[in-house]
């Protein structure tokens, strides 16, 4: 979920499904609905406008669920810290289970982190 990012992290997330990283071989897939998800990947600092949608989306995921904050902005607002439109980090809005650092994080790191979560 993009809570206000610069789309850098999104590009990296998208690339984990490319033939190079092929995260699908580990059973990792993007889903169209939060109802179908096991976890949320949240990118970017949480802007004021996106805080409520983020909470709603989190709420929509069936339990047990995990939240992964992808990228520095998601972890601690990164360069946007303290900006007027920013509500805070992802963990200020919803409970975060895992954080993946980097601006943007390396696709391999994302895959690794996700594999760790899934236990494969």
């Amino acid at each position, binding site marked *: 979920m993009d809570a206000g990012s610069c789309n850098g992290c999104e590009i990296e997330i998208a690339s984990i499904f490319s033939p190079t990283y092929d995260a699908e071989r580990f059973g990792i897939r993007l889903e169209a609905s939060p109802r179908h998800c096991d976890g949320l990947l949240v990118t970017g600092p949480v802007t004021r406008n996106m805080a409520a949608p983020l909470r*709603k989306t989190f709420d929509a995921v069936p339990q047990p669920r995990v939240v992964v904050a992808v990228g520095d902005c998601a972890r601690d607002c990164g360069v946007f810290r303290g900006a007027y439109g920013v509500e805070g980090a992802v963990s200020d809005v919803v409970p975060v289970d895992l954080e993946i650092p980097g601006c943007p994080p390396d696709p391999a790191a994302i895959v690794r982190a996700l594999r760790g979560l899934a236990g494969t």
Partner: protein
Amino acid sequence: MTAALLVATALMGLAGTAAGAIAPVRFRIALSSALTIAACALGFVVGAEVLHSGHAAVVHTTTLMPLASFSLALDRFGALFVVITAVVGICAMIFRFGYDGQGLASRTASSILPLFVTSLLLVPAASNVTTFLFLWELMAITSLLLVLTDHARRSEVQVAGQWYAVMTQLGAAALILGLVLLATRSGSQSFAVIAVRSAHLPAWVRSTAFVLAVVGFGSKAGAVPLHVWLPRAHPEAPGPVSALMSAAMVNLGVYGIVRVGMGLLSGGPAWWWLLVMGLGALSAMFGSLHSATSKDLKRLLAYSTTDNVGLMLLGVGASGLFADTGHRALALLALVAALLHVVFHAVFKGSLFLSASSVHQAAGSTDLDQLGGLLRRMPVSGPIFLVGGLAIAALPPFCGFVSEWLLLQSMLHGLPSGDVAIAVAMPIGVGVLALTGGLTAFTFTKAIGIGLLGLPRTQDAERAGEVGRPMWIGAGLLAVLCLVFGVAPFLVIPSVVDAAGAVPGLHLAGALTRGWNVALPGVPGMLAPGLVAIGLVGFGGLVALGRHLVQQRPVRLTEAWGCGRELQTARMEYTATSFGEPLTRVFEDVLSPARDVDVSHLAESRYYTEAAVIHTTIDDAFERRVYRPADRMLVRWGAVARRVPNGSVHRYLAFGLVALIVVLVVLA
């Protein structure tokens, strides 16, 4: 005995009329409804007895009907229709106890409704031309008056009434001419005598009479292109009346075509039946398309009636075609399929119309775009509509499935007969059947899904609650029958076979049921609706149990997923119009919808849109292309004619002088 009961039925109905006319307001509805129910019950007994024993109930008197005689003879074929009407009538009348809408409580309506039901009950028993036409027209006029019940509040009712009146009169004129032609040519008014002598009539007489009868009965049955009144009148009638019209009255159109074509004329050339099949195919296609794109619940149901009448006519036509080519067993099979569909259509359409009226009463509208979320708010009426909808969509384990299956089988087994007419007609028939089947599934997914499920779209729908007990009992009885007949069709099929067997010249080489199952005699082909139902329930139970077992947490109620958006409201929901939009677009050439886009702009800037509203309206093509131009022509003719008598006494006298001169010249 049955004759006496038949008379008692009529008298009971008339007593209901009298009660409706003179009983004090407090007892009016109760008394007239109760008497009507009693009439229906008596009718049911007569019909069932005749169906069972095969002995016709005969009543004949010259005291009634001046210059003719009043003559009833209820045979097995007619008895089937009496029984159908009786069942629908009982349920509709029970429903009426709780129904307060649309002025049905008035003295006029209370007295006419029993008369309407009585005429419906007696029409299939009529056994001479005058009696038949009398009862037929009585049925027409009483139903017209009932359609008009709510005229004071909605102008659509008037328009509907006018269409109905005109179309029914057109039909009646054709019918009168056709039947009188037959009667005078065979030298008797009695159906029995006509049936014997008609074989010796010249071909043109037979064909003319048949075509006129098809026009007359087709207009009552709502067959395209004579259907234009139906989608207007059925929705505007008060609930029980629309149920009776759709579930009992249109059947009589089919009855009439069979009675005249196969009974009085004992079958005819292939082109007659191809005509009937053609009408049926057209009606089925046109009706199902329009009902798929309608957004008013009752209009949708009305068009679906046209659709189902089309299927019945397909069956009847196929039957006639088979009989003409000598395939008597197949002919009976097709006729049984058609009649079974008549029975089942009555059951599910009755429950649908009644529960749609419940919805109307509860939510104040039948516009699907004003409804929603009613299944939770109406815990009994909602499921009733659901059951009816699934049944009409021919889904197992409900009854519509069985009759459509039989219809398909009769066409399938007719194919190898090697006759060219059949070879061309049957695949088209199956195609039509299939397309309408798919469209009906679409239609009722829409009706149920938009109307009953999801979020309520208006405050009225939000506040809706379950209707009174009589209403859901009346509708519910029919819904229960949908399920019972769907699971255990063997309860009705033998009777229907008996009824169809009353048509001369048709016979079946064996029983159509084997145990609980429907089995075609002589060919491998079997349907086990009971088994299917058990399988569904069994597997469904297992699956649900499994889900319950694996489930580790309680079900969490959440807001529906709307992409995280604020304000997830009913305005986000799909509407009936949008649901039908893809289909409308596919059939654009046939439906030719008119789209209006109203865009209003913000006051501050012309470049920003405040609201954009799209109206899609779909007119009836026949109405637009045939009836309206005809009406315009008539009006133009009237305007021209009006100018001839201009008020001048001299001109009037000149007419006389000319006439006098003509008389002198010609006659002297």
